[in-house]
Structures are given as C-alpha cells and as structure tokens.
C-alpha cells in the first residue's frame, strides 16, 4: 500500500516522530483483529496496545533499511495475532465457549460497534453479532485466516506472510472458514421461532442495548 510505504520511509528516518501516524493509521484494524480473534473488548484493547508498543520496540532494534522494507500491514497483523494467541492460551484454563448463550453469560462481548443510526437496524446488528459469535467457534488457525483475509482485508499473500503459512494453506483455511460460518448461521436461523424470540428478544437484545 502506498501510504504504508511512505509511512515506513518516515519511520526509518525518525521513528519517534513517525510513530504517532502509524498509531493513527493502524489502531482500529489491530483492535478489530484482536477483538474478532478473542471476542472480548478489554482483552482486545490490551492486545492492540501491546502490539503497538512491541512494534515500536522492535523497530528501535532494526536499522533504517530494515524499517523501510517492512510491509507494515501484514507485519503489524502478525504481531497482533501472536499476542492474541498467547492471551487465549492463558485464558484456555477457563471453559472455552461453545455456544452463543453461554458465551454471553460468561461476559464475552461478541457485539458490534456503537453505530446506531437508523440504517443500522436491529436486524443488521443481529447479523453482525451472530457472525462475530460464529467466528469464535472456528478453530483458531481458521479463524485467524478468515479475520485477516476478510475482516481486515489483507490479500492472500499478505495473510500468508502474516501467519507464516503457505498461500495454498491460507486459501484452503479461508474456504473452510466461510463454509463453517455459513453452516453455523444457517443452523441459528433454523432454530424454532419460539426459542429465537425467547433468547433474542428476552435476553440478547437487552444485552446488546446495554453494550451500545
């Protein structure tokens, strides 16, 4: 990306002066990656902040030529994915969430962001929320491939670089991820109407409102 190359050039010249721009340009996507991998807002905040700090410290140890050559988008994504993985491993002592309701009960935040204009109706929120929850049910390696490729929007090559896997593997994992997400969402939709009304109207919507 053009802006990234220009930014890398400025970072190579004066790391401290250029870094606030890196933060401005990348903080939302690093937070999004961490949030979609972990499902928890506070964990995502800490991971994104830690990723930025580590990126700076790493670049402090690099020479200018190495900083110029950095492909910032996949590089920063890989730091975030690694920190998210470490955090999840620590959290794995807890029972991993296996269904939407227990996940919400356990305080997992699978919600969408705070946009609430008239065009963002409950139906759309619902879709986003269910999709976010479905993501968390994928295996971690498939989830990481889907999040980088389709949430963050990296190319297959960049995703492969960020995750340190061959492009062929990424393609297969993304394909598998989309298939599994579709299956989860279709199963959700196929639930009896009575159950959906009870869970969504009676419990999940208030939870959603509380988050917004």
């Amino acid at each position: 990306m053009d802006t990234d190359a220009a930014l890398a050039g400025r970072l190579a010249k004066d790391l401290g002066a250029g870094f606030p721009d890196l933060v401005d340009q990348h903080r939302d996507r690093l937070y999004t990656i961490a949030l979609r991998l972990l499902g928890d807002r506070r964990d995502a905040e800490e991971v994104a902040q830690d990723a930025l700090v580590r990126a700076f410290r790493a670049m402090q140890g690099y020479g200018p030529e190495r900083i110029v050559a950095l492909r910032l988008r996949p590089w920063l994504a890989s730091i975030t994915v690694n920190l998210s993985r470490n955090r999840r491993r620590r959290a794995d002592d807890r029972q991993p969430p296996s269904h939407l309701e227990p996940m919400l009960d356990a305080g997992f935040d699978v919600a969408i962001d705070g946009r609430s204009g008239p065009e963002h109706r409950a139906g759309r929120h619902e879709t986003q929320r269910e999709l976010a929850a479905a993501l968390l049910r994928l295996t971690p390696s498939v989830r990481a491939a889907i999040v980088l490729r389709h949430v963050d929007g990296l190319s297959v090559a960049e995703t492969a670089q960020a995750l340190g896997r061959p492009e062929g593997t990424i393609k297969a994992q993304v394909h598998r991820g989309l298939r599994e997400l579709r299956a989860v969402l279709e199963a959700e939709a196929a639930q009896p109407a009575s159950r959906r009304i009870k869970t969504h109207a009676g419990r999940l919507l208030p939870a959603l409102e509380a988050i917004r």
Partner: protein
Amino acid sequence: MMTVPITDAALEAGLRDLRVRAPATVGFGALVDLGLADRYAAIDTALGRAFVAWNGRGISWVGQAPDAAAFEARFRAEVGRDIGPADALPERLAHAVSRRLAGDRRVRIPLDLRGHTPFEVAVWMKALEIPRGEVRPYGWVAAEIGKPRAVRAVGTALAHNPVPLVVPCHRVVRSDGTIGQYSMGGPDAKRRVLGAEGLDTRALEANAAAGRRYTGSDTTHIVCHPTCRDARRVTDRHRVHFPSLDAAAQAGYRPCKHCRPVALAA
C-alpha cells in the same frame, strides 16, 4: 426475522462489516507507554493545585495553569508531545510524588528528562539531594557538580526545571542569601513553599542582609550553611555567625560534612 447470508459475497460483506473503531485509549495508551505522549492530572501542593504530566518513562512536567486546557496548550508548545487528561496519577507515581513532596528523599522517583543537557540534569539531580526545609546557594550546586564557575548557568538550569516541587529547585537560593527567582510564581511563591517546609525565610533573609552567611558552633568548631540541620541544632548560646568561609577557617572552624559549605565567589 433476520435474513441469513448464504452466498460467499454476502458472507464476505458481513465480515467486512465487523470492523470497529478502537477505543481512544488504545493508540494513546501505547504512545504514553513509549514516552511519545503524556497524561496529566492535578495534585495539591504547597502552592495550591498543580498539574503533573507523566509517561512510561516517568514524571515529565509539573506546572501551574489557570485550567486544564491552558496546561495542555503550554505542554504541547514547550514539550512538543501530545497530552491527554487522566483521573489521577498511577498509584506508584502518586506514592513517589507525595513521599518526595513530604521530604522523603529515599523513595525513587522516575523522571523523564529527555531533551535536556547533561549539565541541566546534573543540576537538578543535585537539587534533589537538598533536604526539605533547607536551602543551598547556587554556588554550592555549581561546586558540588564540579563546575564551580558555572554559578549563573546553575541559575538558568534551575529556572528551566521542568518538574518544580518534585525536583526542589526552590531550595536553591542566591549566593548572597537573598531568596532568588522562582519559576513557579516568583520570590513570593518560593517563600511560601519554603515556609510550608518549615523554613523561617524572614530570619534567613535578615541574617543574609546582616552578612551572617555561615553558622557555627563554638563547642564543635564546625561551620555550616545556616539552614543545615546540624546548624539548627546549635543552641543560641553557642551559635556563632561568619560572613565568609575564610573568616570561619581563620577562627579555627572546619566545614560541616553534611552540608559541605564552600567559599562562594558571589
């Protein structure tokens, strides 16, 4: 009832829609950790409310301002970094600052003094050694840091102290014993801080005006700066004054090992 996305295109659009904005703290928190931006909060001091700025490296700035916005503007202009408000200092820093202001010189206080000369930092570190409620002349600081002739530069460095009160530049006075300038509001503010530390500034200035620059004890034959805790322990009956260290030496007095008085050019 929601519509279920089934096509890959719909699914991919839904995934793109999962992008969110990071809370403001995320990026700014990283910059603060790295010392590329600062946070600040108000604290109570002998001079009333003051603002303290800090980052991951330590306390970076202490100053007074009519309000928070004025403090931020001044910080940005003088330090050149971004700054944002916080509710309070982090516990560790709050503890260190309050212990320091209370006169405890043993507690370590992290300071961010990047961008200042080694000479300035040496002057400020020396000021940190002066006990609460005592004062030393500019010339003493100059001599202690090995630059006995740099008295004027010591005064300039103290005037540029970015962390007044925390680094007690108010405890350094003019070599003729007058109270001297103070960046946090002039000589009157300096008298008020020293007064709050238990120093009788009126007596100090009266003695200086009368040429009583050094204080000795006729039982120990030791001569001190007048505010040295050893000098203040001497009873009136045994207290003697000298206009110069030379006069004290001629009378057979040796310099105190605590306050290490030096002959002053000014």
